[in-house]
C-alpha cells in the first residue's frame, strides 16, 4: 500500500530563527521532489512530530444554497478512507495514539497531525488516505450530520454563537462570509455525498496548500513522507472566486430575543486586511483599545472601574477577502445601554485624541515581549509558521516582526485610527433581553 518515491531531490535553505536571540531553532524551508514547500523546525527534544497544514478555500467554497459542506467534509475526512472503513481507520489511529484532526473556517480547511516519531510511517500513511481517498460512506455521513445538527440546535440557544452568526449574516448578505460556517438546520440535511466529493475534488490540491512541521525528523525523511501524502493530490485546486467585500449594516442594531439575564453583544465594522501597510499600527492601536491584557482601555473602563462585564474585548480579524474590526461584551440586561455608550465613547476618544506616548510604549512592550510565548510548544510553533505562510509574510517575518512593532509611531497610530475607528458607527448584534430604553447611568 505504501508507495515509496525513489530519489528525493530537495532544495533546502536555512533561513530564519525563532524569536529571541537566545533561541537557535532554525526554520528550514524545504522543497520536495514533487515541488511541495514545507517550513520545518527540527527538534529532537521529544519523540514526536507535529504537522499543521491548510488548504485555502474553506467554507467560502460551500455551495451558496448549502452552507456547511466544508465543515462536514472536515468531520468526515478521518471517518473512513481507502480500504479502511470508519472503524478500521479509527483503530489504526488509536492503536498508535496518532492524533489527526480537521477543521474548516471561512478561508481554509485545516488539518493537524501529531504522532510519536516511531509511528511516523503509519501516521503519514493514514493522513495520505484521509486526504486522497476519503470514503464518505452513507452511514458515516448520517452519523456526522446527526452530530452537526445536535451542535446547531445547541448553538440556537448559545448567546455568543447567535450573536456572532447574526453579525456575519448581517454584515455579509449575499457573500460567502455571511453564510453559517456549520450550515443550518435546513441546509445540513440536504447535503449529499456528491456535494462532499465535489468539495473534496475542487479544494484539496497542491496549489492551495501550506505546510509547517516541527519535530524529531530530518528534512530528507520528512520530504519523502510529505511527498507520499501530498504528492498524490491533484496539482490544481478549482476554487470559486470569492470577491473582496466590506461589511454592511454600519450603524444598525439587531436584537435577538432570548430569555437570558445577561445580554451578549457583538460589535464590529471595517478593519484592515493583513497585507495593508497600516495593519501593524492598527494592531498596536487595537491592543490599546481592547487587546488581550488587563490594561486595555475597554477592560479598565467597562470592567475594572464599573463592574459592567466580565468579558469585554476587541480585535482585528483580517480575513482573506475582508478586513474586520470586531469586539464583544456581555452585560446585565439593564446595563446594556450604559456599556455600549461607554464602548462607543472609548472608541471615539481614541480615534479623536489618539493614544498617549506611555500607552503606545506599553502596548509595544507587551506585543514585543509576549511574542516568544507563541512559540513554546511544537504545535504552536507549527501553527505560527503556517499562519505566516497563509498571510504571505515571508520566512523572515519572525525576525522582522518585533522591529515592525517597535517602529510604530504616534503618527502611525493616528493614521490607523482614522482608517478603522474614526467612523464609529458599527454593526451591533445583541442576544438576550436588553433594556434599550435610554436611562441615566447608575452607580455601583
Amino acid at each position: 500500500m505504501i508507495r515509496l518515491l525513489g530519489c528525493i531531490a530537495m532544495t533546502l535553505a536555512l533561513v530564519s530563527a525563532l524569536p529571541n536571540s537566545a533561541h537557535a531553532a532554525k526554520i528550514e524551508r524545504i522543497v520536495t521532489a514533487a515541488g511541495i514547500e514545507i517550513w520545518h523546525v527540527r527538534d529532537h527534544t521529544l519523540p514526536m512530530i507535529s504537522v499543521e497544514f491548510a488548504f485555502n478555500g474553506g467554507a467560502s467554497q460551500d455551495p451558496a444554497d448549502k452552507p456547511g459542506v466544508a465543515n462536514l467534509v472536515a468531520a468526515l475526512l478521518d471517518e473512513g478512507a481507502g480500504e479502511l472503513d470508519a472503524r478500521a481507520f479509527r483503530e489504526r489511529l488509536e492503536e498508535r495514539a496518532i492524533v489527526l484532526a480537521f477543521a474548516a473556517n471561512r478561508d481554509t480547511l485545516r488539518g493537524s497531525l501529531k504522532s510519536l516519531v516511531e509511528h511516523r510511517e503509519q501516521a503519514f500513511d493514514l493522513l495520505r488516505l484521509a486526504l486522497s481517498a476519503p470514503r464518505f460512506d452513507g452511514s458515516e455521513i448520517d452519523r456526522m450530520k446527526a452530530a452537526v445538527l445536535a451542535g446547531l440546535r445547541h448553538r440556537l440557544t448559545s448567546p455568543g454563537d447567535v450573536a456572532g452568526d447574526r453579525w456575519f449574516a448581517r454584515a455579509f448578505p449575499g457573500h460567502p462570509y455571511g453564510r453559517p460556517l456549520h450550515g443550518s438546520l435546513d441546509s445540513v440535511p440536504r447535503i449529499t455525498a456528491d456535494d462532499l466529493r465535489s468539495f473534496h475534488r475542487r479544494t484539496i490540491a497542491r496549489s492551495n496548500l501550506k505546510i509547517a512541521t516541527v519535530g524529531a525528523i530530518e528534512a530528507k525523511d520528512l520530504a519523502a513522507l510529505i511527498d507520499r501524502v501530498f504528492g498524490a493530490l491533484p496539482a490544481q485546486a478549482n476554487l470559486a472566486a470569492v470577491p473582496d467585500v466590506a461589511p454592511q449594516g454600519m450603524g444598525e442594531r439587531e436584537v435577538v430575543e432570548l430569555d437570558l439575564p445577561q445580554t451578549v453583544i457583538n460589535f464590529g465594522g471595517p478593519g484592515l486586511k493583513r497585507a495593508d501597510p497600516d495593519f501593524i499600527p492598527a494592531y498596536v492601536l487595537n491592543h490599546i483599545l481592547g487587546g488581550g491584557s488587563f490594561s486595555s482601555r475597554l477592560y479598565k473602563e467597562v470592567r475594572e472601574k464599573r463592574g459592567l462585564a466580565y468579558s469585554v474585548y476587541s480585535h482585528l480579524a483580517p480575513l482573506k477577502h475582508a478586513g474586520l474590526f470586531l469586539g464583544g461584551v456581555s452585560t446585565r440586561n439593564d446595563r446594556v445601554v450604559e456599556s455600549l455608550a461607554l464602548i462607543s465613547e472609548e472608541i471615539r476618544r481614541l480615534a479623536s485624541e489618539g493614544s498617549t506616548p506611555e500607552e503606545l510604549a506599553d502596548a509595544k512592550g507587551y506585543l514585543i515581549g509576549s511574542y516568544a510565548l507563541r512559540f513554546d510548544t511544537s504545535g504552536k510553533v507549527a501553527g505560527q509558521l503556517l499562519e505566516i505562510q497563509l498571510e504571505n509574510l515571508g520566512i523572515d517575518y519572525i525576525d522582522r516582526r518585533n522591529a515592525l512593532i517597535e517602529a510604530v509611531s504616534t503618527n502611525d497610530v493616528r493614521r490607523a485610527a482614522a482608517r478603522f475607528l474614526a467612523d464609529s458607527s458599527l454593526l451591533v448584534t445583541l442576544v438576550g433581553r436588553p433594556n434599550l430604553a435610554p436611562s441615566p447611568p447608575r452607580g455601583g
Partner: protein
Amino acid sequence: MRTLAALAIAGTATLASSRVGVSEMVGPPVTQFTLANGLEVVVISDRRTPVLTHMIWYRVGSADEEPGKSGLAHFLEHLMFKGTAKNPAGRYSDTLARLGGLENAFTSQDYTAYYQRVTRDRLATVMTFEADRMTGLVLTDANVLPERDVVLEERRSRFDNDPGALLGEAAQAALFVNHPYGRPAIGWEHEIRTLDRAEALAFYRRYYAPNNAIVVVAGDVAPEEVRALAEKSYGRIKRRADLKRRARPTEPEPRAHRLVVLSDPRVQQPALSRTYLVPSYRTAKPGESEAFAVLAHVIGSGSLSRLYRALVVEKGIAANVAAAYAGMAFDAGRFAIQASPRPGTSLEQLDAAVDAVIAEVAANGIAAAELERVKTRLVADIVYAQDSQSTLARMYGMGLAIGLTVDQIRAWPDRVRAVNAETVRELARTWLDQRRAVTGHLIKPPAPTEKRS
C-alpha cells in the same frame, strides 16, 4: 546560542514497553525543594524556548468556605488583582503587561492558582510581585464592590445564560449531600451578592501563607536559580503557625439514585448526564484511579468507545456521548457520562442504553485489545503533554495541591501500564452503581398537548 538538540533531557525513564513501544519515553527533569517557611517549590526544566511559566497554587478552594459564604475563594482570587500596600492597584498587571507577560488566575473547589507566562529574564520580577501580594493585599469598597459585579457577570456568562451549565450545577449539588463539593466554586448568586471586603480579607489572612502554597516554575531556568530567587522573595515571608489541616465533612455512603431535571424553554438540544461518586487520586487505593481513567476511556472516549459504538453507531439514538474520570480532587472524585439524543429518542431510552453498556462491562469486562489501545493512548498523551510547559506546570501544581507527591505524578504512566482488565471490570461493577449516581436531564418543557380520547 543554544540549539534545541544539544539540550539533553535528563531523567529518561525506562518504562516497560507496551505494544506502542514508547521505548524512549523522556520526561523533563523535575526538581522539588521546600523553603524554611514551608513553601514548596517545583521546577520543571524545558529549555527549548527562552520563556517560562510561573504559578503559585494555594491549598484553598471553594470547599474550604464557611457555609453561607459560597464564592468567597473565587471572589478573593479576583480581588488579588487590586493592589498591595507596596504596589498600588494596577502596578503589578501593568508592569507585567509592559514586559509582555501573560497572566491569569483560576479557582477550583480545592485550590486557587495564579500564573504568569514571561520571558526567562523576568522571573525575579514576577516572584517579587507575587510574594508581595501573598501578604500585602489592600482592599477598599471602591474596588471591591465593582469587582463583585464583575463576578456576578461572570456567573451569568458561565451559568445563568446556559441551561446546560445550570443543570450541571444542580446535579453537582445533588451528588454531594454533605460535602461542600456540592456548592459551585463560583458561588450561589444570592450568596455572592453578600460577600464583602472584610470577609475576603479574613479569608485571605487565614489561608494565604507560604506553608499553604506551592510554587511551580516550568521553562528555561535552572533549579538553583529558582531557589535563589524564591529565597529572596517568598523566603522572607513568615510561615503561619495556626494553619489547620483540611478536614471537610465527608459523604455518607450513597444509597439513592437521584434524578435532576432542568426544564427550560431555551433548550433546543436535550442532554443526559450521569455522575457517580467515586474515589479520587488522593483517596483511591493504589492503582485504582488509573483504572478509572482506563475505564472512562474504554467506555466513553472517542468513536471506538463502548458507549459511542452502542449509542451512536449501532443504535443510532445519540448524536454524541462521552465519559470522563474527574479524579483530581482532595476528597471524593466523580465519574461522569454525557450524551445528546438524536431527535425521536427520549432521555429515558438513552438512560437505559447507557446502563446496558455499563452492565455489559461490569459483567464481562473489557477485551485485551481495548485495554492495550487505551493504555497506549493514555501514555502517549503524557508524551504529548510534555510538549507544553504550561500543561506540565498545571499537572504538577494541581497534583500537589490535592495532596499527591511529585513521584506519584511522575509514575502515572507506569501505573497506567500496570492496570489489568479485571480491575477495570471490578471498578465498573462496584462503583458504577446507580445508587451512587445522579442522573441529569436537560429538556424543553413539553408543548401543551391535545387531549387524546
